[in-house]
């Protein structure tokens, strides 16, 4: 396969997929996407190495396979405001890159390594760098969510003043400095890839040159050829709605619980539905835990099933009729939506951001108003209908697999390697955000 590659790209091999975490340590969307790409590229015969940041304390737990490398760091020494890694992190990364000879670097997130590490390795004249954006961390210090503090409203755009209002303890000056640091570092990057147009649009509005940006959806590592069969209406005793993911404040599970109470109050509804919450609880208040516990006791149709193994998620989704994504933040390209599609299930989601982009309202799922449990209850009640379900089921798209994802990435890598433009068809999943040539706005290789 590598023989078919553009000569400029071939000269940069192997490709280094650089992930802020290793899937054997954590199972976040970014590291899973990075690892999926690594496997896809290797499946195509492209020499590729995987470099993951691993907390020093977990070095015994990391499971490294062939061509996988770890950079160990101390989270206590990492700066979470400016996203600065230690000097030793950079040194380890440089050693690995020198040892493997990788010259085409694809960063999936810069966290754990630090934006300084990204900047410094990208500045080398013989290196080409592609950054895959996974959320808004460069734009927003609030966990990269673009949700305001302390009221959790949706943020329409970052600015020194607005960010300083969210973080009065840090002040607008630091917010401005943070932005300039990231923009300065990103100036070294050849190409940006986003799994969603929504995410990319936010970055372009923030300052990333549209001419260096592409959209490539994350692929799924597991087989997606066998969709779960639709449950026959005659055999269905009730409508099953499933939530899959971490139970955190940003994921909107509290909205889901409030909606459950409203559904319970709707005549006849409680007997027709089942609501399953799957996932581990993290970062929620004691009041939320108490409420979850009380409602699972008082509402017979509500079940909290706890953590689940990701390997079995498609089967668990297949046991549901709808998958729920009630996040109160924008989301980017939630893996759970791809998994739902892989399982052949429509999605009921908050009608904002990456969710609204991936779930077409009335086609592959249904939208409800952000943070509105009454509206969610209304939509769920309406979804419990054979005709509606059949229509949405038919509209569920087929997600990418590893091979498709890798092929589309290779096109961007080639553009980065040659510095030439990449013209993308309008309907292609690889989209140039501006619709113009990527030859514009080449990255700088600058002196300091």
């Amino acid at each position: 396969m590598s023989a078919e590659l553009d000569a400029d790209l071939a000269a940069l091999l192997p490709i280094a997929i650089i992930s802020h975490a290793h899937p054997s340590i954590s199972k976040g969307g970014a590291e899973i996407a990075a690892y999926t790409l690594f496997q896809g590229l290797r499946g195509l015969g492209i020499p590729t190495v995987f470099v993951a940041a691993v907390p020093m304390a977990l070095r015994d737990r990391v499971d490294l396979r062939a061509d996988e490398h770890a950079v160990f760091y101390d989270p206590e020494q990492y700066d979470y405001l400016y996203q600065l890694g230690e000097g030793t992190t950079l040194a380890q990364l440089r050693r690995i890159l020198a040892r493997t000879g990788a010259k085409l670097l694809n960063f999936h997130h810069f966290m754990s390594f630090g934006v300084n590490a990204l900047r410094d390795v990208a500045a080398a004249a013989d290196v080409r760098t592609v950054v895959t954006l996974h959320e808004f961390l460069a734009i927003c210090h609030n966990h990269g969510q673009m949700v305001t503090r302390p009221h959790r409203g949706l943020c329409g755009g970052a600015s020194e003043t607005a960010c300083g209002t969210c973080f009065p303890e840090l002040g607008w000056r630091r917010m401005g400095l943070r932005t300039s640091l990231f923009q300065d570092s990103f100036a070294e990057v050849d190409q940006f890839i986003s799994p969603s147009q929504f995410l990319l649009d936010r970055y372009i509005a923030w300052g990333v040159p549209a001419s260096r940006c592409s959209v490539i959806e994350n692929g799924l590592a597991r087989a997606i050829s066998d969709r779960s069969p639709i449950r026959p209406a005659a055999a269905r005793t009730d409508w099953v709605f499933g939530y899959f993911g971490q139970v955190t404040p940003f994921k909107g599970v509290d909205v889901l619980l409030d909606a459950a109470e409203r559904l319970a109050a709707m005549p006849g509804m409680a007997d027709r539905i089942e609501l399953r919450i799957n996932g581990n609880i993290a970062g929620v208040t004691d009041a939320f835990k108490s409420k979850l516990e009380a409602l699972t006791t008082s509402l017979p149709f509500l079940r909290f099933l706890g953590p689940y193994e990701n390997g079995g998620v498609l089967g668990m989704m297949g046991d549901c009729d709808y998958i729920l994504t009630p996040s109160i933040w924008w989301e980017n390209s939630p893996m759970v939506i791809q998994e739902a599609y892989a399982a052949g299930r429509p999605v009921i989601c908050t009608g904002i951001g990456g969710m609204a982009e991936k779930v077409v309202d009335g086609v592959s799922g249904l939208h409800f108003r952000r943070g509105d449990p009454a509206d969610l209850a209304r939509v769920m009640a309406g979804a419990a209908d054979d005709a509606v379900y059949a229509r949405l089921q038919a509209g569920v798209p087929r997600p990418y697999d590893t091979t498709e994802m890798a092929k589309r990435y290779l096109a961007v890598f080639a553009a980065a390697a040659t510095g030439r433009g990449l013209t993308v068809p309008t309907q292609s999943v690889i989209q140039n955000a501006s619709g113009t040539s990527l030859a514009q706005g080449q990255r700088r290789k600058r002196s300091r």
Partner: protein
Amino acid sequence: MDSAPPPSDRDLHGVLTALSHAAADLVAQPLRPVSEHLCGYIESLWSERPGAVWLTGWVSRDVGQEFAVVVADRRKYAGAVAIACYDRPDLPPHAHAFIGLLQTDWQPTPETTDVFAFIGPELKRFIRSVSPLRLQDGPGFAAEFGRVQTLCHVGRVNALRGAMLSGRSWLPDTGALSGASVKAAADEIMVLPGFGCFVQGWILSPTKRLVRLSLKLADRVLHSMPGGLYFLPRPDLGSAMPGMPTLLDRAGFVAVLTGALQPEDLVAPVLKAWFSDGTSVNFPLDPLAIRRLGHALPFEAILRLFPGAANESFFDRCASAIRHEVTGRLAEAQPLNRAPPAERVLVVALPAQASDVRLVIDQIAYRLGGRRPAPAVVLLAELGAARAQLPSLAAQIEAATGAPCATFLIEDTGRPLFALATVLDMLGARRFLFLGAGVFPDAAAWTEGLDACMGDDEALAVITATNGMVLGGLAWTTAGFRQWLDEDGLPIGATHTEALLERGGTVAGGARLVQGSGRPDLLIESVDAVRHGKGHAA
């Protein structure tokens, strides 16, 4: 109306002075302590002050109550004694106990073991000290005086008490001894070495009018300035002296007291309240009320007590002391590691916030990493959290840049230019680029700043904030900087660095400043106004 004439030691003082003069004529005579002439013993001493030693002991009843003496303690001293006597059951019938005052240049010391006092004019009879001799402190002696004064039936006990309560006395608590029903305390003693102090407190004196105050700190005595005392109502003290509403209207006081106060004097405060009848009473004050200005309190705390301080007659002296206090501390720089000589240096004051420090280090490493030749690096930090990180920060910079990195601890990274001068001298630097705390230049400013540091242009180049004309950094020669310091003198307030803005050219680009200059100390601004001949601030 003031009360009846107070007990006074004026007459006694005159008598003792006359006897001392007479004793001076006797000092040359030979002294022979023949045992048959021993007529009593000195049992304890309290050296109140130079010239005044208080005694207890016993003597034969036929010795008078005021007499000239020659004190023999390795050498001879003229003196005069006044005693008041009382009966004590352990003594033989021909003797009685005494308590008294010895006026002399002799001073007992902890090493004093055997001292004789020959009684004039014959100088045959004598009293001597017991062994071991007990040296008392003021409060102990005053307590003993208080116990025995009512027993005295011979001698001038009232005059002796008057001497003990005189204005010269700094017994810490004379309220009980005087019999006066006066109470006082200080809420706050704001001290300023080199100037004096500002005291806020209260005094309840139902019979006498307070006219002035003195304060003793260690051995230093400060006095209230004329017009430097005013009164405030203190209704909260009603329970201490019920039924005296008029008294409470003026029970609070604020005073400015001046004197050559030194930093080592800030202990053992005793307040002396002077009344309109010439008497005084001493009060021990709580040492916890002492707050050093510029250390425990901002200088502008003075404005709470004297809102128009800048227009007060004491302000020039006060401003001078503040400036001396501030500049002395700001100029200190303590090297934390070995600081080798360096001709060209990049000096960076570290900000307070840990994230900012990390970014500073990152930027130094990034901007200097590929630069050859590069200046030596100097980090300035306060004795805060950054101190603990300094060695590793210096190591990170050395590893990333290959340049040596020296570290110094300074008083205030927000006002670093005084210390900068010290550091440049210590390193023998000829040229420098200095960046203030929390200053983050952009690429252009870094480049031009470093070029100026590594070049040969004698002119000052300043780095300003991107969002306004605020000084962020400067590149200059040490000689130029020194000359400017000597000629213009640095302000110590918020305009600390602004004076340089008009003096040099501005480099391209700019800098982001993550911290403002902070709220200025309003009094410091007035101090700078005095310094630069702008008169007192309004």
